């Protein structure tokens, strides 16, 4: 580990009432890399992401951005540190158009009214920058878009803000083969442009295709964080299903790091 992680979490605990969902989780993310976050259903991936995004307050633990300790209590705080999240359920407003969705909560104003022209221009530029050519009009309502197009809009929304860390929660789960390939290509391009990308996926082929690092959660504990090149498909599957694989994983009850 030479470079400082742009985002680092240490000792994160999170409970919902009596149910503890995250136990002492450590997690690091590096610029220019795709970090895959894997784990079985209910392992706590989405919960971890929501803690990072300021949706859920953390019960305990430390949060560092570029090595500096920070406190994130709201989505705005997270956005302020350059953290953008594309949630599993996307969270787009169907009745708003693409531009309105991309700027939701951060609208540009000129005087009292919205600066539609500037917002249209920025949205178009961002979509072009992602080589997105599949939407007909950026004034289309989101309800009229296909699954892949919605995913694209959600990703474009996340990168519109000169963000440094983009987290994608199962962006390809509902997509067909061609659209999945497009989204993965987009994910790779974001990292190649210097962003830190976190990709949550259940598809190991996708994970091995685009990731530089893999972090495996098992029942709310970080089983291992490794370079993708240092691990095999079979080992990852074992880490996901049993929390350990040979001398990797949770043998002594805490998240071993490689």
């Amino acid at each position, binding site marked *: 580990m030479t470079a400082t992680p742009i985002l680092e979490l240490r000792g994160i605990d999170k409970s919902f009432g009596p149910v503890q969902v995250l136990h002492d989780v450590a997690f690091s993310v590096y610029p220019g890399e795709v970090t895959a976050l894997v784990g079985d259903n209910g392992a706590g991936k989405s919960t971890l992401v929501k803690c990072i995004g300021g949706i859920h307050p953390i019960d305990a633990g430390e949060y560092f951005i570029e090595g500096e300790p920070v406190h994130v209590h709201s989505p705005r705080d997270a956005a302020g540190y350059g953290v953008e999240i594309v*949630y599993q359920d996307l*969270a787009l*407003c169907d009745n*708003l158009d693409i531009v309105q969705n991309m700027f939701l*909560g*951060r609208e540009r104003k000129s005087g009292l009214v919205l600066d539609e022209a500037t917002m249209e221009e920025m949205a*178009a530029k961002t979509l072009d920058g992602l080589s997105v050519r599949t939407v*007909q009009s950026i004034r289309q309502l989101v309800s*009229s878009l296909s699954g892949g197009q919605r995913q694209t809009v959600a990703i474009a929304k996340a990168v519109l803000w000169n963000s440094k860390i983009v987290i994608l929660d199962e962006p390809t789960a509902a997509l067909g083969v061609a659209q999945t390939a497009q989204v993965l290509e987009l994910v790779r391009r974001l990292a190649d442009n210097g962003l830190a990308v976190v990709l949550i996926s259940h598809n190991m082929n996708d994970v091995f295709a685009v990731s530089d690092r893999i972090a495996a959660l098992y029942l709310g504990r970080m089983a291992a964080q490794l370079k993708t090149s240092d691990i095999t498909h079979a080992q990852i599957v074992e880490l996901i299903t049993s929390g350990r694989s040979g001398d990797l994983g949770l043998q002594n009850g805490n998240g071993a790091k490689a």
Partner: protein
Amino acid sequence: MTAQDSATGAAAGPAAQMPPRAGLAGWSARIARMSETWTLAILLVLVAFFSIAAPGKFFTTYDITQIAVNAAIYLVLGVGMTFVIITAGIDLSIGSILVLAAVASGEYNIHHGGAASGWGTVAVCVLIALAVGTAWGALQGALVATGKIPALIVTLGGLGAALGLAEIATGGQDPAGAASDHLQSSLGYGKLLGVPWLVVLAAAVTVVFGLVLAGTRFGNYTFAIGSNPAAARRAGIGVGRHLVKVYALMGLLAGLGSVMWLSSYGTTSIAGHSTDNLKVITAVVLGGTSLFGGRGSVLGTVIGVFIPAVLTTGLIVIGVQQYWQDVAVGAVLVAAVYIDQMRRQSRERG
């Protein structure tokens, strides 16, 4: 992306053939998806019908003025209700808020000169009416914002409680001297360049809040909350705070409605506002605002307010018993909601 794209492209009409983000395509798509378009058609058909059925009698300056004055208060209430319904909420209490605000300002007026009270008293009365309406609305908004009680119930409770307070304060009788003569002769009967002040005021409120809804952050948040509150929250929007503001705005406009009512009729009419909510909700829904939230416009509400107003006057002019208007408005309302449902379903399928 072929089959799906061409399907959505067809729905977007001319936009499909245009290059991305052509301004014209954007606008034509926007107009095509405006639900006001067909409501406006109904209004125009009605006006045309009455103009032909009663040539020279309907659509006289007198009629238009009458229609506009009758519609003015409902329009002001309808503007507030448009915001509320776009958040996927409802406010049943508006008639009671109006009465409570009228009684509060009326009582002050009675104790400060009655009908002969001066301009200073008028100003205080107006402020009291607006403050009472806003405070009541904000209180209801705060309860709705907790997410624990549906807006329907909060405002149903508010409907009873506000009316009850007004009745306690007055013993249930409309007090004499609730409005100053100054208020009545100016806002009530006065005209600006031949246009009644009530109409000017309603038009100003409509234009201002129409622009607020369509072109500001406040308007955007209103749509976003009605469309997907979770998404709005994740985008960092203070959903609860915004709901309080929206219901407070409704209350403010109900307070303004009470000032308009007092100036026009000179009395609090405690028993006369029990169906304001239904009339106003009907107008808003006729205007294409979706009861499911996320869609609607002030322009649509203007049209929706004028359909019953034109019907009433028109039926009187052509000599049909005006009770038929209730039948006609009821039928149009049910049809409007049916069409809204169909649009929703076809969008969800598409």
